[in-house]
Each structure stands twice: as C-alpha cells, then as structure tokens.
C-alpha cells in the first residue's frame, strides 16, 4: 500500500499537467466533446481520467470531497501524497469525486451572486461516455451536441440558476467530458 501511494503520479509534471489541462479546458469549453486523459493513474476505484483531473487541478488550496465509493484509504493516501488537498464535507468542497447517485444526494457550494466562481466542480465517475443521449446547446457548441448524461432534470435545474451553479466533469477510464452550468440540456429526440 505504501508503494501504491507513491506511484501513479506524473513522471514529468510540468509537461504532463500542461497536456492534461489542454484536454480538460477543451472539454469544458466544448461541452459534449469526449477526450482522453493520461499520464497518471491513482489507486482503484479511481479512474485514470479522475486521477489526472485531481493531479492537474487540486492542491492544498482546494478542499475536496470523496464520496463513499472512492473514499477508501488507498485513494485518500494517494490524493494526500500527490496533491495535499484537504478532505472536507460536501458543503465546503471545491472539488468532489464520486458516482452520480452519491453526488446528487448532497448540496455543494454553487457560488454567490457576487462571486459565482466560488462554486464546486464535480468529478462524476460514470459508465462509458458516448456522444449520444441528452442534447446539449449553449456556449461552446456550434449548433447542438450530445452526451450520455445520467439524467437531464438535475442539469436543467443547475442551468436555471445561472450564473450560480455547479460545473461537471464526467470520467470513465481515460475518457473525459464536461458540462458547465451554461449548457442547456434536453432529452433526446
């Protein structure tokens, strides 16, 4: 378990995190685009994409919430060793990792009217991501795109609170997609 904690990080952090961030930014700027993240691998059950997201974006300044399915000692030790991010309850989290049913059960910070950026980013560990299912429209999307979302109502409620709200990453193995609060989600036609 000791070696598992130390392993799986970036071997060349400046370059690998830059490449990872470019993919992450592309996903956030173009909702529905499915991209791949590599360079790091945290302990099970953390997916590769979620591991890379955590290494690229989290540090001692970003409180993180681990939902029960990922809140195992190996993951805690790995996140602590590689990022130093403190573990907190959902209402204080800047990042949260877990499955969709786990994360929907909680209220995360959605920002304030004067600082809507002080809101949580959720990393949703999902099944295989595909460009089908819910229809997405909004900033970053030329006409419409599609993404296999776990549901639509929650994302419609989230978008209705704009400029407040949560931003989502969906991860499966090395796959990554994102859904910012601006995206209008409708059920498939």
């Amino acid at each position, binding site marked *: 378990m000791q070696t598992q904690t130390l392993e799986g990080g970036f071997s060349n*952090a*400046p370059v690998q995190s830059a490449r990872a961030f470019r993919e992450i930014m592309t996903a956030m700027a173009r909702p529905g685009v499915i991209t791949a993240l590599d360079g790091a691998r945290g302990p099970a059950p953390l997916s590769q994409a979620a591991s890379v997201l955590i290494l690229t974006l989290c540090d001692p300044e970003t409180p993180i919430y681990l939902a029960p399915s990922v809140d195992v000692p190996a993951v805690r030790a790995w996140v602590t060793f590689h990022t130093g991010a403190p573990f907190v309850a959902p209402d204080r989290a800047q990042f949260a990792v877990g499955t969709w049913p786990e994360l929907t059960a909680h209220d995360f910070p959605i920002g304030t009217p004067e600082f809507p950026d002080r809101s949580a980013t959720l990393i949703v560990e999902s099944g295989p991501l595909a460009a089908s299912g819910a229809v997405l429209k909004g900033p970053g999307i030329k006409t419409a795109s599609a993404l296999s979302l776990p549901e639509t109502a929650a994302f419609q409620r989230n978008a209705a609170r704009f400029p407040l709200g949560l931003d989502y990453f969906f991860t499966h193995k090395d796959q990554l997609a994102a859904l910012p609060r601006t995206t209008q989600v409708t059920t498939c036609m």
Partner: protein
Amino acid sequence: MTEYNFAYLDEQTKRMIRRAILKGLAIPGYQVPFASREMPMPYGWGTGGVQVSAAVLIPDDTFKVIDQGADDTTNAVSIRRFFEKTAGVAVTEATRQATVIQTRHRIPEEALTENQILVYQVPIPEPLRFLEPSEVETRKMHSLEEYGLMHVKLYEDISKHGAIATAYAYPVKVEGRYVMDPSPIPKFDNPKLEMAAIQIFGAGREQRIYALPPYTQVVSLDFDDYPFEASKADHACDVCGAEDSYLDELIVDDKGGRLFMCSDTDFCSSRRREGHVGAQGIPYGEDAA
C-alpha cells in the same frame, strides 16, 4: 540546473490560473479573480496575457504574439522570445499556423479555427470602472445585472457627438447576462468576438481572468435607433489594397504625407505575397533593402 520550469511559472501557480480559466469558461464574461504573479516584465506589458499563455501552452504549440496587429513590435517580439526560451515552443507570425495567439488590442483579420486559442492582454477588465470607481459597487452591479449606467454613457455619447463615439473597448453583453470589456480592441473587431476559437482574457495588474467559449453569443451594446456599427477608416490599405481590414494611419514625412496600412501585418504581407498592391504600395519582392 539552469533551465526554467516549463512555461516559466511554478506548477502551483499554473494550477491556480487553470482553475480560474475553467470557471471563466463556465461563466462566460464573468471576471474571475486570480492571484496574479509578478512577471519579469512591467504591468501594462501583458503580464495577464503572459500568465494565461503560460497556463495553456503545451510543448507542441506554435505561438504567435501580436501587438496592435503587428508581430514585429517590441512587446510582441519580447513575449514571443520569452516563451521560445521558457517553454521551448515553436513560434510563427502566420495566423493560420499558430495554435495559441496572444494579442494586445486586435483580433487577427483571418477567421480563427476551432484548433486555436486567442489570449488577450487586458489593462482594465471592468467595463464599468470608468463609470463607477468602487470594486464593491461594480461587483454588486454585475450581480444585480444593473447595467443602466453603461447605457446612459452610450446615450451621452449620442447626445454630445450625435453618434456612439466609443471606438475601442466597446462594451458587449455575453449570452444575455454579463457586460464585458473586450479589451481595447477597435469596435471594428467586435463582430469577430463570436468565433470558433477559445478566447481567454488576462488582466495581470487587476488580477482578473475571463473567457468566451467558442460560439458564445456576444452582442455589442447599442440602441434600436443608433445601432452598433463596426467602423474603420474610410480607405483601402495603401500597401496591399485591402478594403475590408482595419487600418492604421501613418504619417510618413513632415509635409503632411500620410498612408493607411493594415494594422494586421501578417494579413497585409500575405496579401502582398499573393500579388495585391495598394495605391502607394510596391509589388512584393521589389522592396528588398
């Protein structure tokens, strides 16, 4: 060990900037505060843009820097060299070849593609700042969507000058919500703000980052009876003959001689290479010094 960390900034700083960029993309037009760092160049020379570029660059990028449209001014040359040295990226003056373009006060004439990122250097990110000096107040005005003051300003332009006299840093509304300063680009460039590329704005001294995802709706503020007009000097480029580009007016001697020339130097020289010649221009290749 004398090398710089990739792209100069330390990793924790880049993570902080990257988080701000992501929130900026999620809330288009909203100014995200960030802990701007001291850079090895003075404020006003593009420290905000440089920090954003440092956070987005990857080794495979081809980097272009323009200052008022020109690739060969001091500011553009020194920033280009800075990233050549600290990030080892390829550099170019050709808009089409660049993957990341850092700009001061212009949008390239050539339409940008989905594979490009445009990084703006921003002096004063707050569009309401000259109307309301207090940050506490302007922040409240944004949260309440209280933009009446901006319309009063444009109205006063009309009552004083007969037209909206604001010619650069012309305020826009993003996705029907946030009023945003597009940085001091000429209003000629405003229609181009709806583009295929990702746009990120960095204000170093003022410690703000904001962003526009591709295809975000950006509307220049105006009135029904005084619609927005993307104006430019009423001339063709004297060097390449282009009639649809933004022009700089140059005084060329001390007898009042003047010349209009594309502000986008890459656009102008590409046209000259294609054989276009303006009224006072010399065919390409015949001007070798």
